[in-house]
């Protein structure tokens, strides 16, 4: 069987972008604008880049409009630092927040359909954790396209990529990164539609494969978000950073976990428990329902644990209510139309007259591949990997630390996509040709696929997938402690063993979804192991990482977690310092960027 697997052809673009969502294509567009006629190949798991998960983002993209009389970039920087629980990097915060408006204009001038004010300007709405005067009152800072901002961004960068003639390998997966003398020179790509392997040799490779929360029972992520990019990094002996920081969005629609945007609360929606109490007032007297996501998720889970939640009749899952009944008709019809239709369609609720059932849903990874401020992937805290770049949710520069504010993700993927595009453009001018295909190229993935295709055994894919989801939700979820994390790590080893005993019914390479799903399952297991190990080692609570046995933040853990894992279960941990350059520069209000208290 192994002999069947071979590299069918070789492509030689100047740049390879793995993952063609908002970040990947913004990066590709930047390269093409700076260096016309640069050949760029992008790889996407979906059948057109336009289907990427960026398109599912709803609420908005944060940017301080320089024409705003009250808002300031400094407030945005402070909110991001505070929101991250003092674990984002201040050089990145500065870079991203300062260029936010410029990126809004980049999108607007290329045709994004932002919602407008009466004066014809880009409209803005409030969002969780974004405030004026260092946390005093809510800020109108989120630029939006109704409740489909991600779609607006995706359509725009995708259309730009078409304009520049970017070539897309659709319904394809990058299966192995290629290196020569420590420099990344491309990847082996498997094209599902024809079952062929292509070697892509490029001067520069950009990883932008997005998020990975499909190992949780309730998740807002699309089917394709299975951590493939992170698994590729681990296989190559490279580190991943802060994976223990998983964001649970407070308001997933009960059952499928579909995101019900924070914009609903931005527009005035209120969370209520089974006794109708607007319970957020008790936990966060100032920010209330617009407190940051980690906090609101824990409040909801606490309400449920203490018996003030409800149980959904069909899905049998615990939840609280989101009340939108008091919002004016025109808000329902023009600003939150899409999201409200989800409640109607998927749980049969009419938000204008009925309460909406919501529960925390696994939503976003704050961590990812560690990069410096230029998006160059790091081998450790000091060195980079030449030729390899990362941006978007996949990467951790890190803007978000251990908790991300709503609307900062779209901002980050556009800004860092641009930053990486600029850096790559400069690198291309001096970089050497990647040379010939390395002798052993493809051996790793051919070995894996041969194993999958030849294994005879009793393991059942669906059982292992479901067991993994239940395990991660129960033991590596919103609340964690030493005992359950140790149990999780032991159980993950069992699951990995069982995954090695799955026998595939179809041995075809052409559009064989069970083959690709098995490859994905191994990635989910690998990444879950790193999440659990990082969570176990971080004996404190910080942002979205909450330890019941260590409920306070601790100065002992004032660093980023780096994790390496070349053999399953053998996780080696390292550290990367947190950049505090704003604080250290001692400019005006620098004291706000110290190790500050986090109250809302």
């Amino acid at each position, binding site marked *: 069987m192994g002999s069947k697997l071979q590299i069918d052809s070789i492509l030689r673009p100047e740049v390879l972008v793995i993952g063609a969502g908002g970040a990947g294509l913004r990066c590709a567009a930047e390269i093409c604008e700076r260096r016309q006629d640069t050949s760029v190949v992008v790889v996407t798991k979906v*059948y057109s880049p336009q289907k990427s*998960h960026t398109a599912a983002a709803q609420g908005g993209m944060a940017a301080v409009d320089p024409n705003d009389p009250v808002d300031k970039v400094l407030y945005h920087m402070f909110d991001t630092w505070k929101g991250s629980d003092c674990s984002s990097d201040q050089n990145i915060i500065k870079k991203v927040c300062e260029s936010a408006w410029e990126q809004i204009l980049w999108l*607007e001038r290329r*045709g994004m359909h932002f919602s407008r004010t*009466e004066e*014809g300007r880009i409209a803005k709405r409030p969002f969780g954790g974004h405030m004026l005067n260092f946390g005093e009152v809510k800020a109108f800072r989120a630029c939006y396209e109704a409740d489909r901002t991600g779609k607006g961004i995706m359509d725009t960068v995708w259309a730009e990529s*078409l304009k520049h003639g970017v070539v897309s390998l*659709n319904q394809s997966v990058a299966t192995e990164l290629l290196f020569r003398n420590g420099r990344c020179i491309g990847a082996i790509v498997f094209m599902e539609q024809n079952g062929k392997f292509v070697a892509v040799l490029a001067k520069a490779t950009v990883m932008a494969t997005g998020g990975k929360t499909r190992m949780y029972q309730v998740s807002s992520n699309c089917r394709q978000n299975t951590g493939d990019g992170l698994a590729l990094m681990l296989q190559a002996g490279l580190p991943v950073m802060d994976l223990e920081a998983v964001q649970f969005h407070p308001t997933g629609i009960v059952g499928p976990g*579909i995101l019900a945007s924070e914009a609903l609360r931005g527009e005035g929606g209120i969370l209520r428990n089974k006794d109708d109490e607007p319970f957020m007032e008790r936990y966060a007297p100032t920010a209330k329902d617009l407190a940051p996501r980690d906090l609101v998720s824990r409040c909801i889970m606490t309400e449920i644990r203490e018996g003030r939640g409800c149980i959904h009749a069909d899905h049998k899952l615990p939840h609280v209510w989101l009340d939108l009944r008091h919002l004016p008709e025109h808000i329902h019809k023009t600003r939150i139309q899409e999201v409200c239709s989800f409640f109607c369609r998927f749980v049969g609720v009419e938000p204008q007259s009925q309460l909406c059932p919501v529960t925390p849903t696994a939503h976003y990874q704050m961590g990812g591949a560690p990069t410096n401020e230029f998006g160059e992937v790091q081998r450790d805290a000091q060195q980079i990997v030449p030729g390899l770049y990362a941006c978007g949710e996949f990467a951790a520069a890190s803007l978000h630390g251990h908790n991300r504010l709503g609307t900062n993700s779209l901002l980050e993927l556009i800004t860092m996509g641009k930053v990486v595009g600029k850096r790559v453009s400069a690198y291309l001018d001096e970089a050497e040709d990647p040379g010939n295909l390395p002798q052993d190229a493809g051996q790793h993935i051919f070995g894996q696929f041969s194993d999958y295709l030849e294994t005879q055994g009793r393991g059942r894919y669906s059982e292992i997938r479901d067991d993994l989801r239940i395990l991660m939700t129960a033991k590596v979820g919103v609340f964690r402690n030493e005992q359950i994390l140790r149990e999780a790590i032991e159980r993950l080893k069992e699951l990995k063993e069982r995954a090695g005993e799955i026998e595939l019914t179809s041995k075809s390479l052409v*559009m064989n979804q069970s083959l690709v799903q098995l490859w994905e399952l191994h990635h989910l297991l690998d990444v879950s192991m790193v999440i659990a190990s990082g969570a176990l080692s971080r004996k404190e609570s910080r942002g979205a990482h909450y330890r019941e046995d260590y409920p306070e933040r601790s100065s002992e853990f004032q660093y980023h977690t780096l994790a390496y894992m070349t053999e399953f279960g053998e996780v080696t941990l390292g550290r990367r310092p947190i950049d505090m350059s704003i604080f250290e520069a001692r400019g005006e209000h620098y004291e706000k960027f110290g190790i500050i208290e986090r109250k809302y």
Partner: protein
Amino acid sequence: MSQEYDLTLKVSRYNPDIRRSWIQVYRLKAGRILRFVDLFQKINDEQDSTLAWRSSCEHGQCGTCGIRINGKPLLSCELLVEDAVRLFKTQTFTVEPLTVAPVTRDLVIDMEKAYEQVHFVKPYIIQPAPEHPEGDEYRISPRELEAYVEATRCINCFCCVAACVTQKNYLGPNAVLANIVRLMDPREMAKQERMDILYSEQGTPRCRTARACSFVCPKEIDIAHFIASAKEGNLK
């Protein structure tokens, strides 16, 4: 209390390895609130791991899971069991791929060919309008935007293309709509090029105003209205 249904799915299958097509019948029990994508997953999990189908976001935002159920093009992530039973007045469903592109395997089709039509109309701004004299963003009033904002909600699921009565030499409703968006977008200066695309042989002259596109659009966009306005030269 949650009701269970006994369902029969008659699924169009195709195996490219042996170039064989057939109809396969699956019987399954399902709760009222399951979506058709959940049913396909259930079939994969419990009966047949080889059935190939496609989805991504699974809440009607990406348009990956377009399919025909009892002949009607729709998104399989948006169709709930109880709604399907009510809509089609049966618990037996034929499940077929959209007819817009050649079949790769089972319910998976080669969408690249279909997408070429959308690429052809250049969904970007071809020639941008000059900047506003005071800088920053181009100014567009809410009323101006309102005239075409519904058309920007299209997700290219190709349900309208499958439903359209014109199946040959036509750009298709979604591609025509993408062109209309930029015709109405005040930031686009290349209006003549867009008009040429609109009135080309593959453009609106091929539309027979059957309104099937509007009827099936999962986003409930009145595509036929936009196309009819364009035909009459009545876009504002």
